């Protein structure tokens, strides 16, 4: 298993060609993905073409980008011009992207090799990867288990080392929770840090694109490339460039970590033990651990399912079978074109959330549900700010459990609660990172999450980087590179 930084270095140093790198990963995908179902599309030709071009570039001595030779997989809700972008939905099964997302462009500009599109919960709605129209993705650590979601394919692909880096999107925890469940690093940047242009919107005020990596330093590398202002996104931050890689090493001595112990009261068993061990590690790194009141987070899931579904119900209204996407052949008029196309094109969970969102926005429930949820969101932001007045960073488990069985979530509410610890960062637009923190007795990964104030992306990476150094690497999953 190699990190992106190592791969690039080897490529730049001439130890390996880009074609060799790509071929190795394509072979691994060919070998293992039939079991994992992490990829919805593999760019065999495109990736090799790009690799050849990079080898030629290196040959000529031209300057090489920050991601030169690094194969990267992209969640299938991010557009790459000319490639299908399905969102794991029958609705967009044949939708060929007419333009590239800003992130895809930025990666290619830095000489990354886009290697394929990854599976996900349909339209990023779900926390298990089982809501894909193209079959569930499996957890490399236990094939009977879910890798989490919604960025299920990206997490599984990096975990099984089918690629060193993948992009995901995180609306309520969709990068961090699957990262935790598959034993890798997952980062959700500050809202607005990474352009959303070309990301198929779910909850516009919550969505952020971020990377899955094997190391925290690879996150820093990715953020140097992705963390740029974009004129196609009005919510994009416009700040001076941050040198994440250079400045990531920092002592935790004298730093304060807040832990919302009261909110975490219901935590139990192995997850609790692992979290407490992690806190001890942080203390041993010199950090001071203090108690912060974030009881308000218990309302997080409730307001999330009001606000995110409201936004989603309108974001997904454009999928109507008129301009693109699935259109029923049975319709006899406009009304039935809409009704039948949307009924057949969307899966159950997506329809569930569209209905919920439509309902909370109706004039009869707006005040009672949507407006109230907005107020609670504002309160939550204030409480978070208050907490950050006392500490530099908040530490919290990433997920309430380790990987669960693929058919384990009978009740949608149970699946919704998977996001209990991650939703706060989306609600307040905070940067948050999940880092592996060990394996359970059954060999399933745990993750710990660090959250910082808005725009303190580098600061949370520093905590994660220090923690990572104190945590022995997880033994790789059964498809891990070590098993070759």
């Amino acid at each position: 298993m190699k990190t992106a930084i190592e791969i690039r270095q080897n490529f730049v140093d001439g130890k390996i060609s880009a074609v060799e790198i790509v071929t190795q990963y394509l072979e691994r995908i060919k070998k293992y993905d039939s079991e994992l179902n992490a990829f919805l599309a593999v760019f065999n030709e495109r990736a090799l073409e790009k690799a050849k071009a990079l080898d030629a570039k290196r040959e000529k001595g031209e300057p090489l980008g920050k991601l030169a030779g690094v194969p990267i997989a992209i969640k299938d809700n991010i557009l790459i011009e000319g490639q299908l972008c399905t969102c794991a939905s029958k609705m967009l099964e044949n939708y060929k992207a007419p333009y590239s997302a800003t992130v895809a462009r930025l990666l290619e500009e830095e000489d990354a090799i886009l290697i394929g599109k990854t599976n996900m919960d349909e339209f990023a709605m779900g926390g298990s990867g089982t809501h894909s129209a193209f079959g569930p993705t499996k957890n490399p650590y236990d094939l009977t288990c879910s890798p989490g979601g919604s960025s299920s394919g990206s997490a599984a692909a990096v975990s099984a080392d089918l690629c060193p880096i993948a992009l995901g999107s995180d609306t309520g925890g969709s990068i961090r929770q699957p990262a935790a469940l598959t034993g890798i690093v997952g980062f959700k940047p500050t809202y607005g840090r990474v352009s959303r242009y070309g990301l198929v919107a779910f909850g516009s005020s919550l969505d952020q694109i971020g990377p899955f990596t094997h190391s925290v330093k690879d996150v820093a590398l990715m953020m140097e490339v992705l963390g740029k202002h974009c004129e196609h996104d009005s919510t994009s931050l416009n700040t001076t460039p941050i040198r994440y890689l250079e400045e990531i090493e920092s002592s935790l001595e004298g730093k304060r970590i807040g832990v919302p112990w009261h909110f975490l009261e219901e935590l139990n068993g192995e997850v609790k033990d692992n979290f407490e061990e992690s806190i001890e590690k942080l203390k041993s790194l010199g950090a001071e651990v203090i108690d912060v009141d974030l009881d308000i987070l218990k309302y997080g899931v409730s307001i999330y399912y009001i606000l995110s579904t409201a936004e989603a119900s309108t974001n997904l209204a454009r999928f109507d079978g008129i301009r693109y996407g699935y259109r029923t052949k049975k319709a006899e008029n406009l009304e039935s074109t809409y009704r039948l196309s949307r009924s057949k094109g969307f899966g159950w969970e997506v329809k569930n959330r569209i209905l919920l969102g439509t309902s909370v926005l109706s004039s009869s429930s707006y005040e009672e549900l949507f407006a109230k949820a907005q107020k609670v969101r504002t309160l939550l932001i204030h409480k978070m700010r208050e907490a950050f007045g006392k500490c530099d960073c908040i530490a919290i488990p990433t997920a309430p459990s380790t990987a669960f069985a693929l058919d384990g979530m009978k009740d949608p509410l149970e699946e919704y609660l998977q996001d209990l610890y991650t939703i706060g960062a989306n609600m307040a637009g905070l940067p948050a990172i999940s880092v592996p923190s060990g394996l359970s007795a059954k060999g399933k990964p745990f993750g710990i999450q660090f959250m910082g104030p808005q725009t303190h992306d580098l600061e949370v990476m520093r905590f994660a980087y220090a923690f990572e150094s104190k945590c022995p690497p997880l033994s790789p999953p059964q498809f891990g590179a070590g098993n070759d």
Partner: protein
Amino acid sequence: MTDIHYENWEPVIGLEVHVQLNTKSKMFSRSLNQFGDEPNTNIDMVNTGQPGTLPILNKQAVKYAIQFGLAVNAEVARTSSFDRKSYFYPDNPRNFQITQFFNPIIRNGTVTCDVDGHTKHVKIVEAHLEDDTGMLKHFSSFAGVDYNRAGTPLLEVVSAPSMHSPKDASAFAMALKAIMQYLGVAECNMDQGGLRMDANISVRPKGDKTLRPKVEIKNMNSFHNMEMAIEAEIRRQIQAYTLNPNEDHAKAIQPGTYRFDLSTRKTVMMRLKEDALDYRYFPEPDLVPITLQEEEIEALKASLPELPHQRYLRYISDLELPADSASVLINDKYTSDFFEEALPIAKNATSLCNWLISEFLGRFKEKGITLKASNLKSENIGKLVRMIEEKVITGRIAKQVADDMLAHPEKNPEEIVKANPNYQPVSDTGVIEPIVDQILKDNPQSIADYKAGRTKAMAFLVGQVMKETKGKASPSVVNDLILKKISS
């Protein structure tokens, strides 16, 4: 049969006017804001609602909205924001419109309307920015959508329900159009949908304070048709209340959305209010609020051009034009600018105003064209009036020259006169004198009247000579000759 006393009822009318702003690009994307091109050529990823696209606010449209707000003495919100309005229709590429529902950029203004020489003030409740839809085109076996119009910036101006006649309503809409044109923020080409009106109408017995159920007539793009529509709806409502005096108001007049059928001159129900769509408004998360700085607003205020009402007052006080003529001139920017350009050449404002309004606009009306479409040049009308003023031609000949100018708008009146011997005034006394002698001989009474101090008799005699010479005699020569002969 019950008698219907229309005069006992007071109509209450409010308008919602949609004005397409003439920005270079669209409200939320960079594609061209341009009318009349091949279908689906001025479009981009955003206008066709491609997944993953995001709206980017057009700052020019914001500036235009502020200018309008300042022009009508309204409050310009220091912070305003956008909202999503959801409904499914193929001309709506995202199936939601982006509008300003909760926090519009403009509130509480007053539009001053100068019509038929009267000045009225109409309150506006708000004006907000939003994007236009595409257009459906129906073919024999299918329908297509043209998204060229999708995303065109609209400023929707909402009046208070404070107008009481169809004339009031069209005066308000006309004044609004003039203000937009003077500001240069909109072309308001009515036949291209550049200004579209919805009218909310109710009636109540005179003296009543409470409002009765209202009916909305949608999407009208002609002032004249709107007046007819409102008139028809007012009569319908009064008839309904009169014929069913004991009926619940909401039953006699079912609130809802109507359209005006021009062929039957009747309003036709489209949708009852209880079947109205729930638009599920909520704040647009993809756009940050518009925040304005004091200096920006002040700078725009300082650079406002002369507005229609200011021009109206100037025409009356400085140029001493009659109020009704002044209102005709100012309500169409093209006409008013034309007048301004011709004025230094014509030299006489009253005469120019008369010629422009009575002679030329009258001729256009007959032909069914506008001043702009006539292709006439302001310079040439100015010259024509000057020629009359300087007595180079008579008024009667000028009318013929005006006809020629209409037929050949490229021609200069001086050349027209020069080229046509019939238009040149006869100053040769050898030709005019015998005619004068004959007229004086035939009208001894007029001579006596004149000598008795009745100056009108002089005009009569001159007129008789002019008639005899078919208007060609130089009026000054005729005048001199008559005077000489009577006095001698």
